């Protein structure tokens, strides 16, 4: 069949719907939450308004921004490191069969180990400064990146490689003009997954090893005075930032050079 990419002209109604529906659901959840808290008569678990007040308090104290920046910094460091190492390693392992044979079992052994399990090791190696959570974040995100990069290379349509060979490309040109662009969509997908995991892990890492960041906020609020309004405020902020990060990475998938890789075509 022919392939027709239909540019979906977003109608105003559709846009409103895309925002209104999730917001409506969120609002409903808040209402249910509020009612449930009031109905249970709990003194510990906060209602939505308590959480909002907690956030405002944190913001006034300057802690909110500080903790968000601290967490983002660690994620950025760990994740960037993972990408810088994971993408080339993954591409190389995908391309050179012997390397893949040699290293893949090792990767498959390390990959299922939860970053939480690495916490003691991280503290042992790096102490309680920033390097420990960065290490944990790196560990958490590097494997998804490597694995997706390997798969991306191994899944390159043979026809592209044959066409490239036919045109007599040098190794550099082959990498630059075929392998890299051909793997990019799947590498981006790996990056998106890895970033989600990295953000997931930052909270756990901060709960233990450091004294700033959103993870620290949560554990500190719990320990320092059962401030569950602040605990939940931290959770909500983590969630919102996670959403924002995901939206950010998804934008990478909209570039013309990679859109072909996401099956957003009507048919083929």
């Amino acid at each position, binding site marked *: *069949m*022919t*392939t*027709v*990419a239909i540019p979906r002209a977003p109608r105003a109604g559709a846009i409103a719907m895309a925002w209104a529906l999730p917001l409506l659901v969120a609002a409903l959840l808040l209402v249910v939450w509020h009612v449930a808290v009031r109905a249970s008569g709990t003194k510990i678990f906060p209602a939505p308004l308590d959480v909002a007040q907690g956030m405002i308090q944190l913001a006034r104290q300057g802690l909110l921004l500080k903790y968000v920046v601290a967490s983002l910094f660690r994620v950025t460091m760990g994740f960037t490191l993972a990408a810088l190492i994971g993408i080339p390693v993954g591409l190389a392992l995908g391309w050179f069969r012997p390397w893949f044979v040699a290293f893949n079992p090792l990767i498959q052994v390390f990959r299922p180990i939860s970053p939480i399990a690495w916490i003691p090791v991280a503290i042992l190696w790096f102490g309680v400064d920033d390097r420990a959570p960065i290490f944990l974040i790196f560990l958490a995100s590097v494997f998804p990146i490597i694995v997706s990069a390997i798969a991306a290379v191994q899944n390159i*349509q043979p*026809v*592209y490689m*044959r*066409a490239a*060979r*036919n*045109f*007599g490309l040098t190794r550099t*040109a082959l990498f630059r*003009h*075929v392998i890299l*662009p*051909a793997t*990019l969509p799947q590498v981006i997908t790996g990056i998106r997954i890895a970033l989600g995991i990295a953000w997931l892990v930052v909270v756990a890492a901060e709960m233990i090893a450091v004294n700033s960041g959103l993870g620290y906020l949560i554990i500190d609020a719990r320990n320092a005075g059962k401030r569950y309004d602040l605990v939940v405020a931290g959770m909500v902020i983590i969630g919102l930032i996670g959403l924002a990060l995901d939206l950010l990475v998804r934008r990478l998938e909209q570039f*013309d*050079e*990679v*859109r*072909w*890789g996401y099956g957003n*075509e009507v048919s083929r």
Partner: protein
Amino acid sequence: MKSAADALIQVRGVSMLFPGKTPSSSISVLDDISFDVAQGEFVCVVGPSGCGKSTLLNIVAGFLPPTSGSVTVENQTVTGPDRRRIFVFQENGVFPWLTVRKNVGFGLRDRSEAEQRAIVDRYLEMVGLTGFDGAYPRELSGGMKQRVEIARALAASPDSIYMDEPFGALDFLTRLKMRSDLIRIWQHERKTILFVTHDIDEAVQLADRVIVMSQRPSTVRVMVPIDLPRPRDIDSLAYITVRERIFESIGVSAKIGEAAPETAAARRKRPRDESRDADVIVVGGGPAGAIVGSYLGAAGVDHVILDKAMHPRPHVGESLICSTTRVFDDIGVLPAIEQGPFVRKYGVTWTRWHDSTAHVLKFRAIPHLGVVQDYTYHVDRGRFDRLLLDHARSRGSRVLEGTTAAGVVFDDDGAAAGVRVRTDDGTERVLRSRLVIDASGRAGLLGSQLKLKRPDPMFDQFAVHNWFEGLDRGPAPTADYLQIRLLPTPRSWVWQIPISADVTSVGVVTRRDDFVEGHESPAESFARHLLADPELAARVAKSRPLHDFVREGNYSYAMDRFAGNGWLLVGDAARFIDPIFSSGVSVAAESARLAAAAAISALRDGSVEAPAFASYEATLGRGLERWREFVQLYYQLPEAFLEMLDTEDGRSGLRQVLQGEVFEVPAVPILDRMRQTIGAAASA
């Protein structure tokens, strides 16, 4: 086949074995394949699915090393892919991450920006994608993507292009379009193309040569050169013949539910010389051609009739004479004519403009020719010709309608070897045959080509005619006779021919200069000449003309020869005589009968050179000369002719000629008598 010296690509003894888990489970895909591809040649490889033709192409391209054998290009062994030989992939190898422009320019990265732009623009235009340069492949249809890939291949300026079922994933119409575009491009660029397909039609439409492969393990089953001009007409006989040959070679019948009569089908299956389209080509599907075809068909001679007219012929009425009945009976068309909408013609009357006395000739049966009817027919030529041609078809003639013969092709020895034909869409090709029978009528294909045509100034006539509805044809006994009315102007006369119960053809024949001088419209001319015959004019005035008056020349002529090496002339293509005695269809029928007999015996004896047709030429020539002399004597002194008609003795003598018995009779006594009578009258 091209000689090895010309070969750009040489495939030598290539075999391919895909190893299995055990030696016995190995799959032998290709078995000792050898062929050459010449520089600039378009070669298609066809074969059943899974026969390994794609594997073969991948080996030729250097993507796969063969298990044994070798591929050399320009005498260098192929060890891998090369940018001088670009592969176009079945699954589309266009890079989806690049724009159309960057894809097409992919093989040009070492060129300057300006050069790249120019080359890419050129090939985008060639494949019809100008304006799409900024698009990404995902925005294009499947056909457009294949165009991009073809443009990318061409832009890299390779020596050859290897195409692996490039149109296989496209819908039918797109495929057809892609094929014709590919041919156009190939004719422009003249790259060597090796094209793999499972579609035999595709191969026959595209290739100079088709390599047909067998089932796995594949061998080269047959190589079929396709010597058809491009663009190819997929309905043409030559195309169908080649196609059938390929289908037969892979053991598949191309005919599904064939409707043609069994005899014709069986005849077609008979093996024939592969280098010819037919044993005999008959040029022209008029009565002469159709009758020749019917005779040839009945004798099992493989032949084709080229018929220019696809649509009903213009309304012309014609009167037949009795000898034709034998021919119609011979070829078995008589019952159809008898049942057809034709008016029986029992005789002829002649009337002079100045009196109303009819001089009558009533036809008789001709028992010694087996003609038992004492009548013949008036026919509407449109219907009649169609009926004869359909009959020929039922006798096994392959009729190519809408085909104009552009010329007869002669071989180096001067023998006719085929006919160059042109179809309505302007395609030209050569159909090859052992014998060409020219039944092209007054167009006189061979006569013009060989400059055999000799005009006969004695009979330089013009006719103006029309059909009339409700015309009073005169008193009952002779109403449906052919009525000839003589006009005062020398050699001028009027015919009245019944076409149906209600329709009558009336035509004025006169000398050409009589028309030219007048500067009249055909209708005015007709009316003026009819003034001399008030009785007929009054009858015509009361009837209704059915269409515009038609004016046509009846210039008589003869060809110097009626046969040569590999060719024969029949009917009007041989000689055209003033039609006053309705000799036209008779000459066509008799010459067709004689020509078919001569052709059948010549083909059987294995020589179609001129000597084989000497007797045909003599018999036809003598008969036609008798007709000509008869007409000439008549015009010298029509009064003498009418007088003869008034005696029983004279009538029986004239009847021989007027019923058409002039070809195979030793003598025509009435001619001698006319010569004497008219000679005497002239000297008196």
